[in-house]
């Protein structure tokens, strides 16, 4: 488990169907990104030649970093980016060129982006994140892994501010679509505010992680959620569950709400993982205690407790 850290600002670059302003996020059948105008959003400084995931990450990450202390030394700034789908989208056209023609025909501007961590490269530069830039690619939970790792780094004093970005994209043109996959990014500016301090913030978040297996799913989920429910205290806390189809079916049949004793809302996700990160963002902005629980592809499991920032000192 990672201890609570404080989200001070949320950034987003999302289609309307996933907007985290106001209504809780859902999953939209977004197949393209006509809603995103890179020049309008990022300006005319060469951003249009970056791959789409990089553009989206920059848009959301910059948004999250607005108002951050400009005097903070770059060595104390870090970037944590989660993306399970970006590499697939970028690799497919590169491979087609190599396979059907030659590596000599690759665009020299595009070739370096076979390396998925470059989706964080320009944003790290823009943010002057010299404390480190780490890229996670775990199916479904990449963005929440980024949040968990940032929280640990903050708690252990490795940095003073973390910008955490979750960015996902649909497959490349001509590739089989993934059900429910969306394009977009959400970002969080995160700090550690030890007990007794008065750092202003939107919400406190705590990430717990594990794994799930079909034969132990309820126990797996309970082991993560019960501790969150205990920490949340007497205030009502809802569980926003995002589950891949197999887990979704198992949970729907098993009556998870009865098992946990708290309200549960089920949402289906794929391996992309944007919707759960957007749900965390929505909960941060909403202000009510909420647990965003993800039973992801290949057995990944994460639970994020989001609480109003004012609750913080009472249970640390």
């Amino acid at each position, binding site marked *: 488990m990672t201890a609570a850290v404080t989200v001070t600002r949320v950034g987003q670059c999302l289609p309307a169907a996933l907007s985290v302003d106001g209504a809780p996020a859902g999953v939209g059948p977004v197949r393209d990104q006509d809603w995103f105008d890179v020049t309008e959003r990022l300006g005319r400084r060469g951003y249009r030649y970056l791959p789409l995931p990089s553009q989206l990450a920059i848009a959301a990450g910059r948004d999250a970093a607005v108002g951050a202390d400009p005097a903070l030394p770059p060595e104390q700034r870090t970037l944590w980016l989660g993306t399970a789908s970006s590499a697939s989208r970028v690799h497919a056209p590169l491979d087609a060129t190599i396979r059907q023609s030659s*590596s000599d025909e690759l665009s020299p501007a595009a070739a370096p982006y076979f390396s998925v*961590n*470059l989706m964080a490269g320009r944003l790290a530069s823009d943010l002057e994140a010299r404390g480190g830039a780490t890229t996670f690619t775990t199916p479904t939970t990449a963005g929440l892994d980024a949040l968990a790792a940032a929280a*640990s780094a903050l*708690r252990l004093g490795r940095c003073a501010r973390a910008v955490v970005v979750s960015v996902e994209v649909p497959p490349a043109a001509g590739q089989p679509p993934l059900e429910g996959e969306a394009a977009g990014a959400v970002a969080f500016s995160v700090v550690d505010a030890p007990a007794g301090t008065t750092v202003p913030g939107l919400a406190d978040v705590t990430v717990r992680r594990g794994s799930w297996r079909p034969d132990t799913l309820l126990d797996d989920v309970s082991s993560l959620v019960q501790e969150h429910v205990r920490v949340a205290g007497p205030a009502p806390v809802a569980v926003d569950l995002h589950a891949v189809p197999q887990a979704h079916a198992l949970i729907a049949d098993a009556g998870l709400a009865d098992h946990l004793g708290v309200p549960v809302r089920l949402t289906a996700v794929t391996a992309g993982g944007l919707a759960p990160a957007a749900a965390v963002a929505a909960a941060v902005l909403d202000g009510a205690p909420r647990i965003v629980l993800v039973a992801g*592809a290949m057995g990944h499991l994460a639970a994020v407790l989001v609480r109003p920032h004012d609750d913080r000192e009472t249970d640390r």
Partner: protein
Amino acid sequence: MSLGISVTGTGAVSSAGADVDAMWAAMGLGLPTVRQVGDEFAHMPVRILHAVDAEVAALPSATGPGTAGRTAALAATAAREALAAAGPDAEPVDPRRVGVVVGTGMGESGEHERRREGAPTSASADQPLFGVAAEVAHAIGARGPAVSVSNACAASAYAIALAADMLLDGECDAVLVLGAESYSRVALGCFNRMGAVDPLGCRPFAEKRAGTVFGEAAAALVLERTADARRRGAPVLAELLAVATSCDAGHPTAPDPAGEQAARSLREALESAGVQPADVGAVLPHGTGTQLNDAVEADVLRTAFDGRPVPLYSLKALVGHTGGAAGALAAVAAVEIARHGEVPANVDVGDLDPESRVRVDRSPTPAAGAVVVNAYAFGGNNATLVLAGAP
């Protein structure tokens, strides 16, 4: 001050052999093996690879039909060796407290490349590219977090850093850290396009170096808090004294010519470890054989060690640049160097660059003290590990 974290098991599979003992023996012989890739769709000028030729058992997929991909199979091979070393008779760790962190730049890219060409493969169109951590976690019965980190050529050094934080923050009681990479046409083609592949081999710090050569590999380290390891009776092979990371936050692919952040990473790692530069017995450099990387790293090393020529072991000259596996593989080699107290003879890469002024001995050298591992990557990512033999 030490992190209080120990390495209790290691595993490795590479072109240098199918286990750690084989790699250590190959490090002593210094005879790299490179071959042409057999991929008929690899339309590119330079098609050489340090391939894993050892028999690697297929890994039944725990999360889908058929078998897992080649990267996961390599990773599982290294993982099983590491776990077998980490005290098979010791008190077991609660599986829900065991994490798996995999550093890989390309995941199962090779499987998807075969799918796109219509060849038999384990990959379906919607199979995640980065499912290696999950496949290994299923294979070994780990029930804690299974995390995939993809910081390019420093991915598994970052994985070690993340694992250390998971232990220090109390999220896990043991973490299996892996670096894993298998042949990828996309990666090799893109490196060709960037003019970064040396047709004559990987020649770190050589005067006539002309790029790198990729290699397949997986490496595994079991990390535990030292007190926990001793309590449960696990063997302590080495201590992980410190980890430090930094980011140039500049050019997407080229290192900062001044090496400012790479130098900071090394400096802060040594300070954090409480190790004086004079007490470092060996360095496993990132040493890719690319012009600028080696020049910058040589400057960083000279500055950090105040001009003292610390013995280097250039692992990539033997096994190639194993991408996301490189940091963990170097860490496994560092554990062996610390255990044996010796830096093996380096592979002959021809005359060294007189500008580099680094010490790359062609004969075995005694190594007392801490062992440093550098790992750098696209995106300006820098990581430094400091290890030492068991006290």
